């Protein structure tokens, strides 16, 4: 059966639209990537000639190196703490009915709707008021608050998908509650826990707005160091760093995909 001209032109239009959308998604990254190889000390597109000098600059610049180290420290602590706290809350909220349950859930999810600069500013004011030092503790605390909703969500979805009868079957076979947790519940929740931790780590490592308020020169993370850099210089170093960022994140996700499957990492494909 022949399709009408209108149908065919619509389908061509539809394809063009999809290509355009995909193009816009990758366009910024593509522009920045190409700009990173510019040999001149200006951020321009397209570059006149190609060079790796800005990659060298990005990898050797002191503030970036210390920012990377700080970022890693903060990310590891924050995402791990958020995983423990978030998993515990997700467990309690999923399994038990108690007073203020929905209120507690609302508070824990509130960082999703409160602007990050509000959280950063609030923590800055609190720490100043209480005379607390602005060290790593403050940054880690800030990041835990920010990523908690994502970890909780991830673990909560895994719990929803976990068949309670598996735990009952294990119990009837003689497993005490602790052994049920260790041999059945936790292994089956593992993909959810890993994906929650991974999301938290990526968010924490990239977080800028709130971090700007709570860090100092000593504790500044990579995004903050980049911001400080771009205030002073306008060369392609940041573009080179962006490329490294993208490559590293892709490698991390690829690694997780190889071990767990991307579906599981993104928590969309649950084993039943």
């Amino acid at each position, binding site marked *: 059966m022949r399709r009408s001209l209108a149908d065919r032109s619509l389908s061509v239009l539809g394809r063009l639209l999809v290509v355009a959308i995909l193009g816009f998604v990758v366009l910024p990254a593509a522009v920045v990537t190409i700009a990173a190889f510019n040999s001149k000390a200006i951020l321009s597109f397209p570059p006149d000639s190609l060079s790796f000098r800005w990659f060298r600059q990005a990898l050797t610049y002191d503030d970036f190196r210390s920012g990377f180290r700080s970022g890693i420290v903060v990310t590891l602590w924050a995402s791990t703490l958020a995983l423990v706290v978030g998993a515990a809350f997700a467990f309690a909220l999923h399994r038990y009915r108690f007073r203020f349950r929905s209120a507690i859930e609302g508070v824990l999810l509130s960082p999703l709707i409160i602007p990050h600069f509000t959280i950063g500013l609030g923590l800055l004011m609190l720490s100043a008021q209480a005379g607390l030092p602005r060290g790593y503790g403050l940054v880690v605390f800030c990041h835990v608050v920010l990523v908690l909703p994502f970890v909780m969500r991830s673990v909560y979805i895994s719990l929803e998908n976990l068949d309670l009868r598996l735990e009952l079957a294990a119990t009837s*076979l003689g497993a005490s*509650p602790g052994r049920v947790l260790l041999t059945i519940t936790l292994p089956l929740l593992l993909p959810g826990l890993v994906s929650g931790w991974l999301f938290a780590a990526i968010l924490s490592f990239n977080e800028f707005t709130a971090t700007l308020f709570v860090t100092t020169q000593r504790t500044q993370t990579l995004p903050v160091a980049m911001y400080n850099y771009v205030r002073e210089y306008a060369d392609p170093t940041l573009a080179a760093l962006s490329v490294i960022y993208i490559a590293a994140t892709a490698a991390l996700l690829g690694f997780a995909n190889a071990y767990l499957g991307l579906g599981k990492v993104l928590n969309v494909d649950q084993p039943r």
Partner: protein
Amino acid sequence: MSISLAEPVRSGRRDDVRSEAAVRLDGVTKRFGSHTALHEAWLRIERGEFMTLLGPSGCGKTTLLNLIAGFLEVDGGEIFIDGSLVTETPAHRREIGIVFQNYALFPHMSVARNIGYGLRMRGVPKAEAARRVEQALALVKLSGYEDRRPRELSGGQQQRVALARALVIRPKVLLLDEPFSALDKNLRGSMQVELKEIQRKLGVTTVFVTHDQGEALSMSDRIAVMSAGRIRQIAAPDDVYRQPADRFVASFVGDANVIPARLAERRGDMAVAVLGDIAVTVPGQPLADLSPGAPVDLFLRPEQIRVTDPAGAEVLPGTVTAQVFQGDHIDVYVQTPAAGDRRLLVRLPGPEAAGRWPVGARVGLTVPATGAVAFPTGGDDA
């Protein structure tokens, strides 16, 4: 080889312990908020018995199963297993095997590790555990499937694994929670036969929950029929079918035609109900509160009614309105004024009935003088 799976005779016990019920429920009550899911259930299940809890959904049968397993706590009454009080015993110390409707196999473990799970929890030495897992697999005819994952198995195979996992710990009681409802019809039949064989071979006390009356009638030693949180009757399948204790049991188990009749008189523990000029002798106990002349409902099984020519005394005249071919028998629907113009279901063996009583034929129905039951008019049907 399968004998070693059976419970070993415990040498330290005296013979009189043997007379203890495998499971005993003394007035067990369970409430969920203001809803009473189980109302003072009294039940005694003998050793090796296959007891079925039968009823519609929401009747409390699954609640009762969960109480025996220890997944729920009672709100009143006591539960005994093998003569010892377990009301306060946590589920993991009750030594119960359970097979769920969806089998609940551990997806992250192989078949062998699934079956060996209960043995590992009990600290059974590795060599012995491996031997027992092997025996259990042989028992359910799945030898060679040790290393498969549950998701690689068919529904029937998964059910066998679930059964082996529950039996390998030599449970004091085996609980089955609607285990056949996820299987297709052909497989269901063969699994029922197989389960019954294994159960008889091992002599394991079994509590089977189902809403399928056919399943209950074919598999059970005894059936506890439940409705609205109460046990309505506990009896052998034959008795539940032929001598239902009340209207609910009569209409839930098997097909029943309900015909309005009148109580004529009582004779000892029997009573006589009349349907026009036909007299039917029925058990008198359900009608004990009625005086002669009171209206009663006569419950007749489809196979108790016979079709004959419309002429003659002691037949109910009617018209055939439909015929349904069922393979081994024929269901004939007959409209008769005696039943308030309701259609009666008559079950006739053999295909020759189809030609003899075609749709539209004027027929007479004969009702046997005994074997029917009657209950006071009104009350709850299924």
